């Protein structure tokens, strides 16, 4: 159904407000000054590299969020983005560090490898779902764990790892494979991959809204039965959606890999996939919404550092993230019901089915 602009913007605003209130209470209990805390969070944007870092991280979350959202579009809950992106990152780093190619081509090869690796890792749950009816929720939970073992093996010195001090990393990717960033001097360097992420988002929008495939995907998500009757091959859609989701998941780690780290470290952070779930939910699977969700999520993440700097427990940011997700979905639900009732009233009125006494409606 079509939601109004108010219907789109009101819920997140309410949710943020609610979370701020909740955190204020928590801060007061722990004896911290909420104003200091929120001041530090806002203030960080104007200092150091935080603003640029936020955008950089947002690009990462954005890609993870898009990957999750593709699954959501057809009611697939791909918890496995976590495992897929990590697996893809390692493979891409290994290949990127292992081949010698001219600039651009090198980069493209790495990107393609990452996409394929992500898709490959998503193929397992997809096949299990299509042919054996295994719920993708469970299979991807298991595969996330298994990915850790695979990565451990791949990065170990027995396989492709190189020990640097106490750390192990893949062989560094030579400069020809990097994606150059845009330097902002003191304020840091913006990943070039931010624009790639933007392109992927635009592609996602076009794919979903303007192509036959997108239509079929959404149709299968909304009603598998109706889609089947409309000639959409459900199995094929599950497979394609899952592979596409895994492919985009494969891009998740690339902004950092190609823009800053140039190698995959054993200590490289995990958890982008899980954050992607939250971001996709916040953005309601809409590419614009996911972008906002990603920026918000990244901003909260960065806040942990500056809150710590002013002596406020950084756990607050996790509470805030949880509270925002929960309250945003509740707020969306409330607004959705209000709008549905309003739309029904409008339909009723325009059809003149009941000219009398409508004011009392909306009992739902």
């Amino acid at each position, binding site marked *: 159904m079509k939601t109004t602009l108010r219907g789109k913007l009101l819920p997140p605003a309410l949710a943020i407000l609610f979370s701020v209130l909740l955190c204020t209470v*928590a801060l007061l*209990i*722990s004896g911290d000054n909420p104003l200091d805390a929120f001041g530090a969070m806002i203030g960080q944007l104007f200092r150091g590299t935080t603003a640029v870092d936020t955008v950089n991280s947002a690009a990462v979350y954005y890609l993870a969020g898009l990957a999750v959202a593709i699954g*959501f*579009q057809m*009611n697939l*809950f791909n918890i496995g983005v976590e495992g897929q992106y990590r697996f893809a990152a390692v493979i891409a780093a290994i290949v990127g560090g292992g081949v010698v190619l001219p600039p651009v081509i090198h980069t493209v090869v790495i990107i393609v490898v990452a996409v394929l690796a992500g898709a490959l890792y998503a193929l397992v749950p997809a096949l*299990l779902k299509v042919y*054996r*009816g*295994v*719920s993708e*929720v*469970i*299979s991807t*939970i*298991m*595969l996330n*764990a*298994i990915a*850790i*073992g*695979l990565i*451990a*093996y791949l990065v*170990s010195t027995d396989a492709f790892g190189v020990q640097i001090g106490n750390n192990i990393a893949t062989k560094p990717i030579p400069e020809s494979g990097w994606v150059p960033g845009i330097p902002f001097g003191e304020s840091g360097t913006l990943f070039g991959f931010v624009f790639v992420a933007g392109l992927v988002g635009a592609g996602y929008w076009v794919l979903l809204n303007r192509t036959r495939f997108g239509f079929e995907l959404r149709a299968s*998500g*909304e*009603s*598998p039965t109706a889609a089947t009757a409309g000639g959409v091959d459900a199995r094929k859609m599950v497979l394609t959606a899952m592979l596409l989701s895994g492919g985009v998941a494969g891009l998740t780690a690339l902004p950092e890999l190609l823009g800053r780290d140039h190698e995959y470290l054993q200590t490289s952070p995990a958890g982008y996939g899980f954050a992607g*779930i*939250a971001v*996709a*939910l916040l953005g*309601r*699977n809409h590419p614009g919404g996911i972008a906002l969700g990603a920026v918000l999520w990244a901003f909260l993440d960065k806040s942990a550092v500056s809150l710590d700097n002013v002596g406020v*427990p950084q*756990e*607050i*940011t*996790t*509470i*805030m*993230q*949880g*509270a925002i*997700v*929960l309250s945003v*979905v*509740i707020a969306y*639900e*409330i607004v959705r*019901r209000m709008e549905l009732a309003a739309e029904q009233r409008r339909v009723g009125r325009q059809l003149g089915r009941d000219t009398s006494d409508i004011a009392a409606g909306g009992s*739902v």
Partner: protein
Amino acid sequence: MAAGIADNPVAGPVHVAPPPKRRRIPGWLNGVLWAVGAIAVLATASYLTGNVDLTSSTTTQTALRLALPILLAALGGLWAERAGVVNIGLEGMMILGTWGAAFGSYYGGVWVGLLVAIVFGAIGGLLHAIATVTFGVNHIVSGVAINLLGLGVAKYLAHLVFQPLSGNPRQSPVVPKFDTYSATGITNWLADLESEQRVIVSDVAGILRGLLTQVAPLTMIAILLVPISYLILWRTRFGLRLRSCGENPTAAESLGVNVYAFKYTAVLISGGLAGMGGASLVLLKDGADYLENQTNGRGYIGLAAMIFGNWRPGGLLGGSALFGYTDGLQLSGRGPAVLALLYAAVLLLVVVVVVQLFRRKWFAAGAAVLAAGLLYAIYFSVDELPRDLTPYAPHFVTLIVLAVASQRLRMPQADGFIYRRGQGS
């Protein structure tokens, strides 16, 4: 709503399937048969590979211990899903439980700890119920949010409460633990039997001894909760009503069942059980006290065990036992034990082949022969499994078993559907 769950059930066309031609085996007997079969296979594998770990009392004990939090989480999942609410927030509720357990136990002893854990888990459940039942939020979305919140709140509370006590924001001080009890008379006798290394007898003795040694009240309660859940859910009117909310809430409502109330109750109990699962990480002897992130995905595994167990108490006991057993085996027995387990899998597949041949299912039998051959080839060709991958043996086992068996699974019909009063057709 986009994620996870389809829209409400629509009255579909009436389809008349043939009456079931199932042989009437009572559920408990079925369970016993499975257990006997499993023990027989393991005992044989233990004998043939000479790996005593497969059925030793130590393995059983560790399996029990590792299975416990998973079992409780799975029971939590069972209660919620039987009432039609998918609870992926078990992890968050467990985390709340760990904090509550440490807090309660520190100030009031183990039983208070257990109680506070249950209450904290139930608070998580309450939140989930408010979101899903009252506001009709997609169940998975709400669950994900609760996992985040549970983690955040526990961290924050630990920072607030435990740091002054332990000097560490991520850990509680040492808290009282449950005492453990052993059936000494029997276990000594069993210990003798076990050490005699007689085929089957020693294996059974080992397993029994593991189950009877150093058992904490919480362990007993958790195990008892399996039959209790069964009795309540399948043998009482309360349970019937609760299950009806997961099968067809509109019908239940039309018969005067207060669906909202039952869903709330079920999700609260679910949260309480998850909280108890958290407590089992904190309050058992050798437990960890409160430690950040100590649940480590066990809530998700619990959910998997429940699905694995076909939304039934006996089944989820089997699922948690399988996971706990495999995990315990790989942790304490390591590579050789996992290899022996691989051998057991080959034996199991041989049994499957025989059964399928008997049933004249040629294709299934062929597939099983192939799988058995493959596994045996692996068993034969390597003397050590890759060290990096053995820790994930339980996950592999779960995947494989699901791939083989998931098509027989049957979830409550309205599980995950958003129900709104007066909206049924």
